[in-house]
């Protein structure tokens, strides 16, 4: 019988990297689908592929370099970055859930890209506009996922695992995207973003502490406690925002 031990930190790394990559790739997929439908698939897929390879090169270049940085200062810096990044994601997700900020609308994004692509004129066989649009969409959306993979992967000494999970997320989104085609609004994007925010803030808190030599009372298991704490706080803040929106009768004013 083989005993497999999976620490809390590995569970959180896998969860955070998968969700962060999946969310960003859903946004990128919307752009690729819009470009592909309006200007042809060849250039759209070429642009998307080159962007994915570029993101992979970025991870391959920066990952080993970060792995050479001593662990304590690395965890302090990464913890701080994750804390900021996670709090930003969580803030947006709470405001969206509470009705104070527009939910991310993939259909609207799709229509926006289609309009821009249609106004760009007829599409030649090798379409530079389609290539650049698909490349930019995938590369820019993927950058945040790369940051999550690098920071979480190197600090946990699990870069290879983080990369594998990210590749898995890209494949899942690509297969699901091909299946559902344009129905990307059915993806619970805000809920996923909220989950990523909670995981990033939990890890950010944990590693910032490790970086300044805090001894967490339950070791790695403290991470699960932090996740639970931030879930409760998030729910309370969503309820607070909803109460205010309901009380004032205001709805979704601006982005």
């Amino acid at each position, binding site marked *: 019988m083989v005993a497999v031990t999976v620490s809390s930190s590995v569970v959180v790394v896998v969860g955070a990297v998968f969700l962060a990559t999946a969310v960003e790739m859903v946004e990128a997929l919307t752009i690729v689908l819009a470009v592909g439908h309006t200007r042809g698939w060849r250039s759209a897929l070429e642009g998307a592929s080159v962007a994915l390879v570029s993101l992979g090169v970025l991870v391959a270049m920066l990952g080993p370099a970060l792995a050479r940085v001593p662990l304590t200062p690395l965890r302090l810096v990464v913890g*701080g970055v994750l804390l900021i990044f996670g709090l930003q994601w969580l803030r947006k997700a709470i405001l969206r859930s509470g009705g104070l900020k527009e939910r991310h609308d993939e259909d609207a994004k799709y229509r926006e890209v289609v309009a821009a692509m249609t106004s760009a004129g007829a599409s030649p066989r090798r379409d530079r506009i389609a290539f650049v649009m698909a490349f930019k969409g995938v590369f820019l959306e993927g950058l945040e996922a790369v940051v999550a993979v690098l920071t979480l992967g190197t600090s946990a000494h699990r870069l290879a695992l983080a990369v594998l999970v990210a590749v898995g997320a890209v494949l899942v989104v690509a297969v699901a995207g091909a299946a559902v085609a344009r129905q990307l609004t059915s993806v619970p994007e805000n809920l996923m973003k909220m989950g990523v925010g909670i995981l990033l803030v939990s890890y950010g808190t944990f590693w910032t502490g490790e970086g300044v030599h805090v001894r967490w009372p339950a070791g790695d298991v403290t991470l699960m406690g932090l996740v639970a704490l931030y879930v409760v706080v998030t729910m309370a803040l969503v309820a607070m925002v909803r109460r205010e929106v309901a009380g004032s009768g205001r709805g979704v004013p601006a982005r």
Partner: protein
Amino acid sequence: MTIPRRGLLVRALRGFAAFWWDFLVGDTPEIFVAALVTVAVVALLRVMGHENAAAVVALPLLAIVALTISIRRAQRASRGR
């Protein structure tokens, strides 16, 4: 030959700095400042005061305070519109 190269380098550095500024500060400078304050407070508690228990409580507490302040700020901004 050196001028275009230098121009390219400056553009690349500016782009790199702009990416990190947008990524870390963006439209929520209060979160950036709060994270720095949190790290400083916990480091002081732990490194100078040797207060592990206080640091364990202060770290998540300060993160929650930062999030609440940022949400309240967004609510106030929304009321002003």
